[in-house]
């Protein structure tokens, strides 16, 4: 809670500034970081011209950053002021507390094994399965394009956990002790990642890019070996709360529609804090059970009755479509009911919006920090998107490439990036990999222009910015709304709830 308040003070202050300049850093960073940002942005710009050569440029330039950091931490005190600030923020893990410190510092030879545990089967869980195809796509792409990491081939081992936390734990043990993977990357689900967090941190196996936006992954001090992937739910809630205040005014009324589970509750908790800070009035709270696959007609009737200025909708999977269909019906039947509706980023996917043909999806806001590969313009011109689409098609998956597979690809891009950084800096060990991940400063192929993945010892969160989007039913695509919002560094580290 304390952390969230700090965030909102920051968010409220910076959102306007940021929206105006389209650049960030909130005044909190030093000159080194600013220059890095500029470099990253330049790279991104040129990347549109030539993708392949640029990929390498980015890597080498940042590999240099990494080795500099390492040098600095070794000879303490000799750095000048500018570097001292950077050094304070840079992160180094302590391997002496590991179950087996030697394993954490042992050089990784030969094939580099990456493990992951995601749902591939099992009731509703199977909906997550294309994530795995996205992961495989990146590994295949990197192996064929770059010949692995400095000649060491990458191997992805996918385990099926049916979205069941106890199976995730079994899979994690299997990956670490039987398959002897170097790292785990992109495990899906909050309870699933929580179930393996304590073990992996004790074993000192990097648990990279947990595919959830729960606040827990920023615990740099307590669980340094775990990093998160998605834009933190706190950030999204803050972004929408700020949008309401800026566009509809203070004191606006808000209705909540959320799925009653850990995921929905995390958003609602964060939004309540934001609404409190910014003076928004929550007038309706409607819940839906995570397993409910019917249409939320009763909940919508209540929302119409409360007639709020804005709605925050947090449905899950097919419920995204059902919610918007119902919204369209309600709007048509009640002309005075016309709230600004934001639906969370997990629904930000044409497969959920496309089937809505009654006007319910038109004008619904959402956000995303990744490029929309289903946007015809992006698909045709963006080198990152082109590379992704080609690689994804090669996996033979029949899933929508713009679906959850994108996040799978991203989880592997970041995993491989951290490995590449560690390898370039000298020795490839689990320790150097997690240090590289915790000190990441990277613009991935699919990250939206203007954002950077950045973490350090004082910043435990990777996704702290997003682009607000609006669905256009006529064009069947998302349209960008305003400039990109970058709250990089605002979340700090997680200190427990």
């Amino acid at each position, binding site marked *: 809670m304390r952390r969230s308040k700090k965030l909102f003070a920051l968010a409220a202050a910076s959102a306007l500034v940021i929206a105006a300049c389209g650049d960030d850093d909130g005044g909190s960073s030093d000159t080194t970081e600013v220059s890095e940002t500029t470099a990253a942005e330049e790279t991104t710009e040129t990347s549109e011209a030539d993708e392949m050569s640029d990929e390498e440029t980015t890597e080498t330039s940042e590999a240099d950053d990494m080795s500099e950091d390492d040098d600095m931490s070794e000879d303490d005190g000799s750095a000048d002021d500018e570097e001292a600030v950077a050094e304070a923020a840079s992160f180094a893990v302590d391997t002496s507390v590991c*179950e087996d410190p030697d394993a954490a510092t042992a050089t990784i030879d030969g094939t580099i094994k990456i493990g992951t545990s995601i749902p*591939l*089967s*099992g*009731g509703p869980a*199977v909906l997550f*399965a*294309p994530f*795995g*195809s996205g992961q*495989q796509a990146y590994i*295949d792409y990197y192996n064929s394009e770059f010949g692995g990491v400095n000649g060491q081939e990458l191997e992805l081992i*996918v*385990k*099926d956990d*049916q*979205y*069941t*936390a*106890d*199976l995730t*734990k*079994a899979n994690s*043990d*299997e990956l*670490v*002790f*039987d398959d002897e993977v170097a790292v785990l990357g992109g495990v899906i689900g909050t*309870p699933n990642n*929580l*179930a393996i967090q*304590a*073990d992996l941190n*004790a074993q000192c196996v990097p648990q990279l890019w947990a595919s959830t936006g729960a606040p827990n992954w920023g615990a740099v001090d307590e669980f340094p070996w775990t990093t998160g992937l998605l834009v933190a739910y706190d950030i999204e809630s803050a972004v929408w709360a700020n949008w309401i205040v800026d566009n509809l005014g203070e004191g606006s009324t808000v209705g909540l529609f959320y799925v*009653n*589970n*850990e995921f*929905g*509750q*995390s958003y609602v908790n964060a939004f309540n804090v934001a609404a409190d800070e910014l003076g928004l009035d929550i007038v309706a709270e409607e819940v839906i*059970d*995570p397993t409910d696959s019917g249409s939320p007609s009763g909940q919508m009737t209540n929302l119409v009755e409360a007639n709020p200025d804005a709605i925050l909708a947090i449905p899950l999977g097919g419920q995204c479509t059902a919610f918007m269909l119902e919204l369209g019906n309600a709007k048509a039947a009640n002309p005075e009911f016309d709230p600004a509706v934001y639906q969370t980023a997990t629904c930000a996917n044409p497969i959920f919006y496309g089937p809505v043909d009654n006007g319910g999806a038109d004008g619904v806001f959402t956000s995303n920090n990744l490029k929309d590969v289903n946007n015809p313009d992006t698909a045709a011109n963006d080198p990152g998107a082109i590379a992704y689409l080609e690689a994804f098609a090669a*996996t*033979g*998956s029949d*899933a929508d490439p713009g679906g959850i597979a994108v996040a799978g690809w991203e989880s592997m891009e970041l995993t491989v990036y951290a490995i590449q950084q560690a390898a370039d800096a000298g020795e490839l060990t689990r320790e150097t990999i997690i240090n590289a991940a915790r000190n990441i400063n990277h613009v991935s192929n699919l990250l939206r222009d203007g954002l950077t993945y950045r973490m350090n010892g004082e910043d435990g969160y990777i996704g702290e910015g997003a682009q607000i989007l609006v669905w256009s039913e006529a064009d069947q695509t998302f349209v960008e709304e305003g400039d990109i919002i970058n709250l990089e560094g605002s979340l700090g580290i997680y200190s427990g709830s």
Partner: protein
Amino acid sequence: MDLPIRVDKGSWLHWLGRVLLFGAFGLFLYRAVTEWTRSGLGLLTDALIIAIAVTGLNLITGYTGQLSLGHAGFFAIGAFVSAMLVSGKIWTPFLESNVWTPGWTLIAAALVCFVVGVVVGIPALRLKGIYLALVTLVFTEAVRAFFKYEEFAGVTGGATGLKNLNYLPPSWTGLEGRADLVTWFFWLALVILIVASILSAGLLRSRIGRSMIATRDNETAAAVMGVNLAKTKTVVFGISAAIAGVAGSLFGLKLGLVEADIPIFGLFGSVTLLVALIVGGAAQNWGPLIGALFYVFVNDYARSVGEAPADSWLLGWLIDGSTQLDGLGGVVFGVMLILFARFVPLGAVGTLKTWRARLAVVIPKISVPAATAGEPMASGDVSADGAVTDGVADATVSGAAAEAADSDAPASDS
């Protein structure tokens, strides 16, 4: 020598059979502990925890004939009770921070589940078969909703559940911290399974046990013969729930977190337990363990087929490269369940026993039937398992009934 061999109960041959069986099981466990990696031992522990819950379910569904889909509810209650006590969410006298030692919460979970089980058992007095199954299923989902209910979130954690439950091995075990966590839970689960099995066997030999089987085989007849149906059903429901609750409590502590949306706490869990029971063999003393092992390891195999279809002998010839077939693991497991039900309809233990019967039969010692013996009431059903009776007037037990109950109890297994 003619088959089947006739073995007298309690003879040296009978004991040899028992020693061989338990010896083989002991050897299997010994190999698992010494040679398996943490992952295999972890799966085995999961199977043992499920086996504990199924042992509970077996009492009410297998031996008493009351189809329950409510045991995931008890499982969840057990898990949440432990989690709430360990996280100091419930005020406790004599404890400053309200934080319990995890071990003691197992007992608390058992007590709470016993009480809830007795209450759930009351509707069972009126309801049968699928009606009871559906009511208990709704109970399971209601429990899940209750733990997620916002108003109680301060105690139950609400939808986000309770986290960071650490039950590290105590120092007297000689096990060291988190590295030996799996080993610790393996032994814990094994000991509790053995205790639950002995309890269950003892119960079956008691008067209540004979009432249970009588109730299952013919409720009306049992009532006529003086079985107190109300007491039998509610008490057995309570005991059965308590055992499932302890299993749930172990599950939560092993996982380190509880969250009402974890599938095993809902419909899926109840179905899992029922499938494990029937696959292993209902009303068989080894059934829960065999069924749980089947469920966990066959499911693991089915998932492994789905993870890398090209590497499996089953489908490898059909599929090339790293093709991922979404949902394949589920299809394989589903088909395996169908095939199992088709070709092993009596459950693994039941079928093994019919095979064994071709090789050897155990001849029970003949005891003199009591004067009020109920043989005439056994309505033509004279199989060792089915003979049902209880004393009419003063509930003295006939020899035949004693053996009937005995044949369901563990010690008679060879």
